């Protein structure tokens, strides 16, 4: 390596600019592929961007931590974006109020089913206890999932990965499974995506239909609340 090139490399790997730019470029590439091949949900832009970046970092030997120093500026916007979900929610408020009882029952059923089936399936197939505990809160938005994971003895950073994978699975296959169970109501379709797959499910629902998006945002918020309160209680009941 020539000295000039080496210097440039040192600068790039120490500055947050590279990680930040890489995140945006990889996501745009993901979007481009998604648009170019007929907006097939399986070509999820997040999945494509994650694979591109992880591949590049592995190939160049840059650590995740170094990349995240730059990417954290994008990561930070998750907070304000969650707050912004109040806007679609407000616009659908009349709809929400009318379906409140159905929402609450569906929330409790969906929240419990997601957590229990995740732990149950992994347990039946012989996963380690650490993995089981990290899986339990995977349906809710990352900050709360990581908090709950820590509380019950899981690995927060592993939980974050499960959270993202859950979102990508729902965004890619959610439409298919919703058609399979023949749910046509946009409110219900969106709510299911939000409860089971937090922000990534909500992002997908927003892409498809505005009503679905608002109910997905609501589902994500409500399940964050339900999981944060119920899961630690459930854990103490089962494991003492």
């Amino acid at each position: 390596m020539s000295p000039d090139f080496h210097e440039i490399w040192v600068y790039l790997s120490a500055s947050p600019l590279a990680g930040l730019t890489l995140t945006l470029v990889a996501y745009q590439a993901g979007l481009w592929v998604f648009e170019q091949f007929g907006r097939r949900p399986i070509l999820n832009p997040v999945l494509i961007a994650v694979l591109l970046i992880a591949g590049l970092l592995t190939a160049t030997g840059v650590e995740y931590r170094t990349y995240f120093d730059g990417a954290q500026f994008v990561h930070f916007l998750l907070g304000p974006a969650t707050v912004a979900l109040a806007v679609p929610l407000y616009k659908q408020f009349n709809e929400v109020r009318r379906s409140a009882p159905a929402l609450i029952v569906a929330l409790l059923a969906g929240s419990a089913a997601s957590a229990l089936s995740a732990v149950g399936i992994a347990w039946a197939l012989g996963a380690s206890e650490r993995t089981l505990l990290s899986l339990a809160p995977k349906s809710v938005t990352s900050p709360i999932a990581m908090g709950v994971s820590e509380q019950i003895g899981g690995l927060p950073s592993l939980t974050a990965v499960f959270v993202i994978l859950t979102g990508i699975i729902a965004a890619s296959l959610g439409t298919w499974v919703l058609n399979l169970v023949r749910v046509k109501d946009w409110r219900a379709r969106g709510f299911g995506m939000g409860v089971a797959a937090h922000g990534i499910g909500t992002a997908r629902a927003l892409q498809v239909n505005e009503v679905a998006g608002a109910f997905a945002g609501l589902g994500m918020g409500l399940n964050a609340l339900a999981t944060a309160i119920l899961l630690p209680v459930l854990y103490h009941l089962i494991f003492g």
Partner: protein
Amino acid sequence: MLGTLTILLLCQLAGELIARILHLPVPGPVIGMVLLFIGLLVKGDVPTPLQDMAGGILRHLSLLFVPAGVGVMAHLHRLGTEALPIAAALFGSTLLGVALTAWVMAALSRRGEDRR
């Protein structure tokens, strides 16, 4: 745009403070969302700049998950040794969760509307 971003950040900050002071297990941004929602209820409509800002940020919501997603790198070993239980659990529980929530909600709201 600047004013709107400030409002979003103020709601988030207030949410974080409330969560910490009251020791609530809920993340600050979720409380911030409730605060902004109450604000909109009080005001009675959504100001256009806020509408535009929220629309813009939510249209690219999935971008914001990319940095955390790349964290998969740090766990490749565990994901490799427990690949089958993890994959089965993630696919099974996610699809069950989406389908069951939507199905219960659709069934109940249909019944509610029939009665009316």
